[in-house]
């Protein structure tokens, strides 16, 4: 249904008609391909930063046509705003107004990325004001952009600079088609650790990854995407889903492990399988999850407890086993949900579990960092899956077209891309965060 509508408003007579009628016209999003350039046009860099030149040099090395502060009248594929040196809200004016002019030159599928610093309670009030103000301004710009363009921000924390590996990794992700459905989001990046991949076409080469709940939907897309990016994939799901699971395993040349994630030794069994078959374990994706929706007034223990058991308690237990196994550099990415941020009618149990995931990754970051690893979450918004296809048409249409700035649902692939990015070696400075993949939905904004 979504695809049909997308086709209709993007081609031929129906496109003209939709325009005249003022119907929402979601754009075809620019997604990742090794065959297309990183950006669909030149990149304008506005503003200044201590390491601006080094950043610019790296961008050029990625094959980008980089213009510093002046693009003339050229069409632009992207815009980077360096705002990390601002100390007062009055200083925003020239940069934001210049950005406003540049936005007129953006081509479809363009990207806007700001680089700034988070506002802290310990900041001078004026400094905190401009930093927090950037948050509001960039999110607003995201809502104004059209034709599949997005705006996201990178927040430098600690000793991170504009050319730190993790900042470069985040910049690459936000500029690329990998972030197609990530819009209006800020990602905190700290430190100077991490190493950029030899090739962004295979940033997970040599990595062994386990994906739970991989038999279908988002899990199957995660397996396929991480495989595309060079990883060896272990797909994990319930014995009852093993038919579908083996098909996924065979598509990604991986191994299938039939396992109930709520089993007491689930984490240990994943580790043992990975070590025995593949010699290592570098990444675990906690994707297995269930919904048992009911208004809280009608909720029963069976529904509540099973959702908590599968969606969060199992992850807490597996994480303990993963930490105890002392796996150097282990990355964990867990599936949260915008329901866990904004709440959702009929999903108090689900939201408790998914909000739980967000709390868990924040509180586990230090433990994973101790061994050179990270733990993060990805919170999908409305994603087109078999599960969401069952939502009544009216509700679905609102969720898909009205709420997100991008006026469409995301694909399982979009969630998988964000997960892959968080697993890169270069993303080591991103830890304890929850990255939303929601097309800048109003929900939870």
């Amino acid at each position, binding site marked *: 249904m979504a695809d049909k509508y997308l086709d209709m408003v993007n081609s031929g007579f129906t496109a003209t008609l939709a325009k005249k009628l003022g119907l929402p016209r979601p754009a075809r999003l620019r997604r990742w391909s090794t065959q297309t350039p990183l950006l669909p046009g030149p990149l304008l860099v506005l503003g200044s930063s201590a390491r601006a030149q080094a950043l610019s040099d790296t961008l050029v090395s990625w094959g980008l046509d980089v213009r510093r502060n002046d693009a003339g009248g050229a069409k632009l594929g992207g815009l980077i705003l360096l705002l990390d040196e601002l100390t007062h809200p009055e200083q925003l004016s020239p940069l934001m107004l210049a950005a406003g002019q540049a936005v007129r030159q953006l081509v479809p599928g363009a990207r806007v990325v700001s680089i700034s610093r988070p506002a802290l309670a310990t900041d001078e009030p004026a400094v905190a004001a401009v930093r927090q103000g950037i948050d509001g301004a960039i999110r607003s710009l995201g809502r104004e952009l059209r034709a599949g363009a997005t705006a996201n921000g990178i927040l430098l924390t600690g000793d991170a600079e504009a050319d730190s590996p993790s900042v470069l990794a985040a910049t690459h992700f936000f500029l690329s088609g990998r972030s197609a459905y990530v819009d209006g989001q800020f990602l905190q990046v700290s430190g100077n650790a991490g190493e950029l991949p030899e090739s962004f076409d295979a940033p997970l080469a040599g990595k062994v990854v386990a994906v739970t709940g991989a038999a279908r939907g988002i899990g199957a897309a995660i397996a396929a995407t991480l495989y595309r990016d060079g990883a060896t994939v272990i*797909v994990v799901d319930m*014995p*009852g*889903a*093993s*038919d579908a*699971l*083996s*098909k996924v*395993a*065979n598509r990604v*040349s*991986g*191994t*299938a*492990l*039939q*396992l*109930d994630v709520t*089993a007491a030794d689930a984490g240990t069994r994943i580790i043992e399988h990975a070590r*025995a*078959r*593949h*010699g290592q374990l570098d990444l675990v994706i906690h994707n297995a999850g269930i919904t048992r929706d009911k208004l809280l007034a009608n909720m029963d223990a069976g529904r509540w407890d099973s959702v908590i058991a599968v969606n969060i308690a199992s992850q807490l237990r597996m994480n303990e086993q993963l930490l105890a196994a002392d796996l150097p550099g282990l990355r964990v990415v867990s599936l949260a949900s915008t329901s866990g941020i904004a709440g959702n009618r009929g999903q108090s149990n689900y939201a408790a579990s998914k909000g739980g995931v967000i709390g868990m990754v924040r509180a586990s970051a230090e433990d994973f960092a101790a061994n050179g690893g990270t733990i993060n979450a990805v919170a999908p918004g409305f994603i087109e899956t078999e599960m969401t296809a069952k939502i009544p048409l009216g509700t679905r249409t609102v969720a898909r077209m009205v709420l997100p700035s991008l006026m469409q649902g995301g694909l399982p692939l979009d969630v998988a891309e964000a997960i892959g990015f968080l697993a890169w070696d270069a993303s080591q400075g991103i830890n304890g965060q929850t990255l939303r993949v929601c097309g800048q939905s109003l929900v939870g904004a």
Partner: protein
Amino acid sequence: MATPSVRPAVVIGGNRIPFARSNTKYANASNQDMFTAALEGLVARFGLQGQRIGAVAGGAVLKHSKDFNLIRESVLGSSLDPATVAYDVQMACATGMEAIGSLANKIKLGQLDSGIGGGVDTTSDAPIAVSEGLRQVLLELARARSTKAKLTALSRLRPAHLAPSAPGTGEPRTGLSMGEHQAKTTRHWGITRTAQDELALASHRNLAAAYERGFFDDLMTSFNGLSRDNNLRADSTLEKLGSLKPAFGKSLGEEATMTAGNSTPLTDGASTVLLGSEDYATEHGLPMLANFVDFEAAAVDFVHGAEGLLMAPAYAVARMLKRNNLTLQDFDFYEIHEAFAGTVLSTLKAWEDEEFCREKLGLDEPLGAIDRGKLNVNGSSLAAGHPFAATGGRIVATLAKMLHEKGSGRGLISVCAAGGQGVVAILEARN
């Protein structure tokens, strides 16, 4: 020419689809569908995608003639390297055992580094042949050149010819079904109804318990909406089994003991087992569950009444034990295929019988009794069902895993087959 040396053949693991009673969940699945599904689950479990396996061997007892290359066609439909050799094997219910045993031998000799053996059967999607009369008419029609000759051929057609001829489990030389044959044997050995029902109950309980503790999680891949054998009756009781009417040996009247409860039902399903040399397993980071030590086939003259149809394994075991210098008690697990509860109990009784062991097996002493606590401890065919050619693969993979879990010891496999044949094997645990 280099002399081939003998090396261990190792059972790495297995995969089967759940077994389904005839005309239930797999009613529309073909042998090729099912074997491919079992194979694909094995490939997925062990990451064999794109690999050229030494050989894939297996077969089906009930097979369409169009499936002459059933296993090769399944391989071509799988994720294995299309350059993987495959061939069909057929030895009735011992098809799977013969396929696996032969592959093990080739691995031992160094001819193969890896092999996949197994089998499949469907009694739902069974081949139906035209009647012999119609077949003769059609063949003559094809040979006829002139219109007159064609008409002559057609004129021989009779309404009765149109009745299709479905395959049965009857023995061609005696006309008796397998159940009727076993009923004779069961009576000969004086096996009681209660003893048979108790064995059936144990089979269901053991299989149900194995499922409960997740034993089959790495032995099985769901198929067509089924993730457990649907013949399994976890809540069966002696009372329920005792209430069933006799299904075989009805001519015995009150003395008839064989029911649908203590006989295996017609079943659809498929199984596979991955075997390899130690080097193959090590190189690919694969587990080594058990060594496939030896196997032996035997056949008996059931046609002239010298022996029961399904008693050949009793003979094969005696020969195999002697060759391996073992006694019947030197095993930690016994996997005796439950074609009928009566088959298992008759075989056990024969091994304990001095006269049988002396006269028939040529032994000075009986082979003796086994510890019944070691028999079919995770259930067998009475509970799981018995898709003829798939049973061998089910048993080998199950036993290999049990031995590996125990970490030591030996297991004995015994599978009887139509035509008065049987195949038995010895597996040895690897840590």
